[in-house]
């Protein structure tokens, strides 16, 4: 009979810190917005990348490359770029030069003003763009 330890081999010791709260998909913030739009990690893709990075390095500042992220996620570099951009919606993610990124994973308090602004701005832009298409008024998109 397989034991739990065999089924679920322990991960290496990494500093998880506040990862539980950071990654919690059931937090108020995740529930407040549609799953692909918000959350402390910038939506579905950002959350997955945050999970992988925390598993590998813990909660920390990470220097990585698009190629490395692509390897970790099993995607191509274009998709990896999108994952990094998604994570960057809610966390400081800096593209230092071609293909090099610095990611600083941090806890965002539920109701964080900056995060809410990011989400609300995105929603506003989508509504404006939709209205523009409906009315044919290009000014409505601005």
């Amino acid at each position, binding site marked *: 009979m397989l034991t739990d330890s065999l*089924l679920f081999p322990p991960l290496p*010791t990494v500093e998880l810190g506040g990862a*539980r709260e950071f990654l919690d*998909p059931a937090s108020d913030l995740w529930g407040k917005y549609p799953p692909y739009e918000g959350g402390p990690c910038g939506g579905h*893709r950002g959350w997955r990348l945050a*999970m*992988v990075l925390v*598993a590998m390095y813990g909660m920390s500042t990470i220097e990585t490359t698009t190629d490395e992220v692509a390897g970790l996620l*099993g995607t191509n570099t274009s998709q990896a770029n999108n994952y990094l951009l998604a994570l960057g919606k809610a966390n400081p993610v800096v593209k230092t030069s071609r293909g090099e990124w610095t990611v600083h994973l941090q806890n965002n308090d539920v109701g964080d003003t900056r995060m809410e602004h990011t989400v609300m701005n995105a929603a506003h832009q989508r509504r404006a763009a939709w209205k523009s298409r409906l009315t044919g008024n290009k000014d409505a998109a601005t």
Partner: protein
Amino acid sequence: MGTNVLKIALGASLDSSIETSAIRLTLGLHDEIKKRLAIPNREGPRTEAFIAHEYLEHFTGLDHRTMPKAAALAEKRIGLVIRSGDGLKNRLMYGTSHGQAQGWGVDRLASLPAIADR
């Protein structure tokens, strides 16, 4: 217990063949299941907790269209939750010894140098 579930979810996240929604479902249900397990029943401590499907969206942030597939994947690949049905409604049952857990098992973790060295 919380850390264990988090670590299981983190381990699963390293396998790109396990969809994100399944991991989110497993991790998102943890706190609620933990609360329900803490309430003993007539026979003694609970070993299983049931959550009706209609509450899953609230606890996990996943929408109702994603949920059935995510639950099936979580059951098959991660194993902490299993689905059951009594003919009236489907439920999720929380356990610790189910699932294949092969896709992100020992071989997968050992193949990652950054993890193996830590």
